[in-house]
């Protein structure tokens, strides 16, 4: 009762055309013969089976694009119906209130579930990462840090050792030190890593192949109006959550952020199915998914506002203000839930939360901008190399061995990562250490500065000091880690396990930033008489914060890869909670975008969309070629004529043959073949279903029955078979343009209105049709790409 797609259909046509004409978008916006009002009257007269809507009308098949206009007007129609009904009785009023609230309820549920799942993932990753090294004897479910949490045996020099936590070698042989123990630990580390990644890839393969990858390119495509059935299904949700933990804890160079967005969108889809408002309308469903993406980023980075902006800037296609508020709410609930779980025990939402209060100086903008350049270069290198490698995987023998590939890459990663202390631990911990400022109490090697023995200052005001041997040691280890991360991430992203690239990108940037930071710091310390340092770096002052450089570097590299700007800066700002670092972050983000854009306009997600040939019509691209609608429309000059239906002379058999012989997704309906005056457009799926239902339920409909799209079927002699009236599934106001409309306008119409197809007419006569696929192909052709690579059914 909630949805009557058929009535929705007929009015919605009217609404659509009105909107188009109002916007002045189409040269010859559709002129339909029937106005919405008389359509309503007509609907009352129809006495055939179509009064009862049959299931599945107005739904889409797998790998098809949706018609945004149609979805939107279907929802308006549904809404109108509920409003008018709500005046009838109290119960209907309550129902309408519930309907109005359902959007917020869905958001609440999404927030709760995605926050919970993020908490589970964080806790499990924490534990499993440490499982590669050892085990907690008192309670096996504790990670290293949790195991030693209450221990009183930790000493100042060896802060994370406690007797409860034992490394594998210690547990097995009793020796904690020595070459034998090292080799055994090494061996077990690799073995665990291999086991985790093998489990991950086999679970993905057996239960949910769609759970692999980062998911953001596909979600972008889905949000732009593409249907991929099962991509946001329940099994995908379960398997992605489970295997994400395995993949991250196997020590591969990947992160959980992108997959968390996918997980949150799966939650969104799950809860959509509870409310017919969302489950039956693909357009409304996408509004929920946009908000779910925001919740995903919100829990991934502990940045609710950043999440909303990420959804707006990076993933969403259609983002009305209502969705903005709902995303805001979903992100809030998700962050709150995660905070309640408190997975890191530090009352923060992320492991690498930092808090500095040291100021920065104008002259430091130079190294920040240099880091931005580095980020841009890294982004370019990563995108080019990763796409080349993925193309290889797609086209050559390599793609035939996904399990072997994962195992091999994990083996190499683990073998190379173990000897270097900066790659052995989890990437989040590495970033956390690089972001942290060296206080007096830090025990890490990076903070091994030479202290002035008679210094006794409060802990948070440490002046610049000369670097000790530990720092120099750490520097070359970091340099090795940088090279390793750069190379291995290129091969890791795109394997058949859940893998995000935020964390590895940030790690690359943080390492580079920290190295630059330490270099600047030491330069300032040793040469504080130089003119540039003279003003802001007096001896004994705290003037350079290497951790800040690490953060700026991380932002720059992430920006170079994803081409985010506003949301990136906001995410980083929420990570640090320091307003004063917005300018350095902005400078780095914008520089990295400029540099990266100079080498190629597309970010990693757009590149992957293009590689896979998803039908994604990017709102950001500009179309500047001077072609006309008539150059793009089908049929072309030598093609057979357009497959059309006539309003009152086609038989059921003709229609069935037409459906069988062609694979078009819809057919224009004309007055007659001679005049070719357009009256409407009918979708293939609706037509198939209508005829099938009519044949089953309506007596007298046989192959020779005539199909009528007119308002009233003429009175026929009794000898003729009963006619089949199909006006209810006819879209009376298909979007039309004239043949001389420039493609620039047509592309704009497709983008802004989310059309699926558009008919081309000349003075009311139907000439041809332009579909979204034709537009995408044309654009690909204009950019000298292979137009056949675009996926579409």
């Amino acid at each position, binding site marked *: 009762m909630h949805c009557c797609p058929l009535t929705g259909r007929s009015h919605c046509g009217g609404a659509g055309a009105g909107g188009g004409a109002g916007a002045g978008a189409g040269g010859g916006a559709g002129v339909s013969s029937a106005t919405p009002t008389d359509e309503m009257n007509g609907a009352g007269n129809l006495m055939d089976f179509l009064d009862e809507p049959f299931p599945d009308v107005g739904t889409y098949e797998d790998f098809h694009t949706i018609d945004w206009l149609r979805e939107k007007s279907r929802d308006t129609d549904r809404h109108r119906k509920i409003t008018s009904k709500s005046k009838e009785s109290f119960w209907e009023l309550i129902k309408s209130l519930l309907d109005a609230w359902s959007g917020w309820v869905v958001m609440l549920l999404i927030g709760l579930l995605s926050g919970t799942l993020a908490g589970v993932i964080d806790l499990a990753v924490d*534990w499993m990462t440490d499982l590669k090294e050892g085990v907690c004897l008192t309670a096996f479910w504790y990670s290293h840090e949790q195991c030693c949490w209450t221990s009183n045996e930790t000493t100042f020099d060896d802060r994370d050792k406690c007797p409860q936590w034992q490394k594998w070698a210690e547990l097995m042989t009793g020796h904690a030190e020595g070459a034998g123990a090292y080799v055994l630990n090494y061996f077990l580390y690799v073995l665990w890593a291999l086991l985790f990644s093998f*489990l991950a890839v086999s679970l993905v393969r057996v*239960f949910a192949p*769609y759970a692999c990858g980062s998911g953001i390119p596909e979600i972008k495509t889905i949000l732009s109006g593409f249907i991929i059935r099962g991509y946001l299904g*329940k099994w995908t949700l379960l398997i992605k959550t489970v295997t994400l933990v395995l993949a991250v804890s196997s020590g591969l160079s990947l992160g959980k952020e992108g997959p968390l967005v996918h997980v949150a969108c799966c939650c969104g889809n799950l809860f959509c199915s509870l409310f017919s408002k969302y489950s039956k309308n693909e357009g409304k469903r996408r509004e929920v998914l946009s908000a779910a993406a925001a919740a995903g980023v919100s829990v991934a980075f502990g940045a609710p506002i950043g999440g909303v902006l990420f959804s707006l800037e990076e993933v969403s296609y259609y983002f009305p203000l209502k969705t903005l508020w709902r995303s805001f709410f979903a992100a809030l609930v998700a962050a709150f839930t995660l905070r309640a*779980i408190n997975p890191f025990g530090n009352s923060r939402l992320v492991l690498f939360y930092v808090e500095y209060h040291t100021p920065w100086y104008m002259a430091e903008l130079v190294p920040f901008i240099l880091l931005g350049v580095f980020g841009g270069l890294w982004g370019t290198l990563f995108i080019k190399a990763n796409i080349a490698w993925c193309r290889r995987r797609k086209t050559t023998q390599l793609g035939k061995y996904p399990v072997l590939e994962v195992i091999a890459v994990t083996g190499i990663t683990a073998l190379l990562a173990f000897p270097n202390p900066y790659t052995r631990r989890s990437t989040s911990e590495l970033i956390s250490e690089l972001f942290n400022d060296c206080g007096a*109490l830090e025990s890490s090697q990076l903070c091994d500065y030479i202290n002035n023995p008679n210094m006794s200052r409060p802990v948070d005001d440490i002046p610049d000091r000369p670097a000790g041997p530990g720092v120099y040691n750490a520097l070359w280890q970091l340099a090795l880690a940088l090279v390793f991360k750069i190379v291995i991430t290129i091969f890791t992203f795109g394997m058949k396990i859940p893998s995000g690239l935020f964390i590895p990108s940030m790690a690359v940037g943080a390492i580079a930033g920290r190295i630059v930071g330490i270099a600047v710091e030491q330069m300032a310390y040793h040469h504080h008489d130089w003119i540039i340092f003279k003003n802001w770096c007096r001896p004994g002052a705290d003037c350079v914060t290497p951790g800040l450089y690490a953060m700026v570097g991380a932002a720059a590299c992430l920006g170079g890869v994803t081409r985010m700007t506003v949301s990136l800066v906001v995410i980083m700002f929420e990570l640090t909670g320091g307003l004063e670092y917005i300018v350095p972050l902005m400078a780095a983000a914008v520089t990295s975008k400029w540099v990266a854009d100079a080498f190629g306009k597309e970010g990693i997600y757009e590149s992957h969309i293009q590689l896979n040939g998803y039908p994604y019509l990017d709102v950001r691209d500009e179309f500047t070629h001077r072609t006309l609608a008539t150059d793009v429309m089908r049929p072309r000059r030598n093609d057979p004529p357009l497959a059309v239906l006539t309003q009152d002379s086609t038989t059921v058999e003709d229609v069935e043959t037409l459906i069988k012989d062609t694979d078009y997704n819809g057919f224009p309906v004309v007055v007659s073949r001679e005049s070719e005056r357009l009256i409407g457009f009918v979708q293939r799926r609706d037509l198939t279903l209508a005829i099938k239902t009519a044949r089953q339920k309506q007596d007298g409909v046989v192959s020779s029955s005539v199909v009528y799209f007119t308002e009233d079927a003429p009175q026929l002699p009794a000898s003729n078979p009963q006619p089949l009236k199909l006006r209810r599934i006819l879209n009376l106001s298909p979007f039309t343009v004239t043949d001389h409309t420039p493609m620039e306008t047509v592309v704009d119409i497709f983008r802004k209105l989310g059309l699926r197809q558009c008919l081309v007419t000349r003075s009311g006569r139907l000439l041809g049709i332009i579909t979204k696929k034709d537009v995408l192909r044309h654009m690909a052709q204009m950019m000298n790409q292979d137009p056949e690579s675009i996926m579409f059914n």
Partner: protein
Amino acid sequence: MSPGREGSWTFVVPAVVTWFLLDAIVFVQAKNFEDVRCKCICPPYRNFTGHIYNRNVSQKDCNCLHVVEPMPVPGHDVEAYCLLCECKYEERSSNTIKVTIIIYLSVVGALLLYMLFLLLVDPLIRKHDAYTQPLHNEEDSEVQEMRPPVDSAQAKGNTVLERVEGAQQRWKKQVQEQRKTVFDRHKMLS
């Protein structure tokens, strides 16, 4: 959505509900004594070595004077010594950790068992009723393919077992389709 996914509902929902319930119990319970700590890190000072103090005190008592016991320095140095120490109050929920890890492991275990079942045992059972195969091939016609689950007779199986069986078959077909798309044709996600 399509009822083909109903089967997995039975999987996800109870897991989440259990998690919530167990967690609710955890929160209701009084805070475990080992779930709060005040950790003070004191760096080396004069000739005293650095030390870490770890005590279970309330948040307002979390400072050097309450936690550092016994005080290593003589009375007049306490203030200077305490200025160097950094005390942090932290909370965790050890029960949440325990419950989460155990649930996670059992989910992974269940999935692994089911995977082994599907890969090893299922083909042996299926061998006997090979006649079900042609039934699926009929569904290639267009309308059927659009919504195979709804009207096919097998979905309306009489017993619960048959219905589960039907749902499982549909799900398997979907996964097979996905596998073809991703792993064989490399149409997506490459």
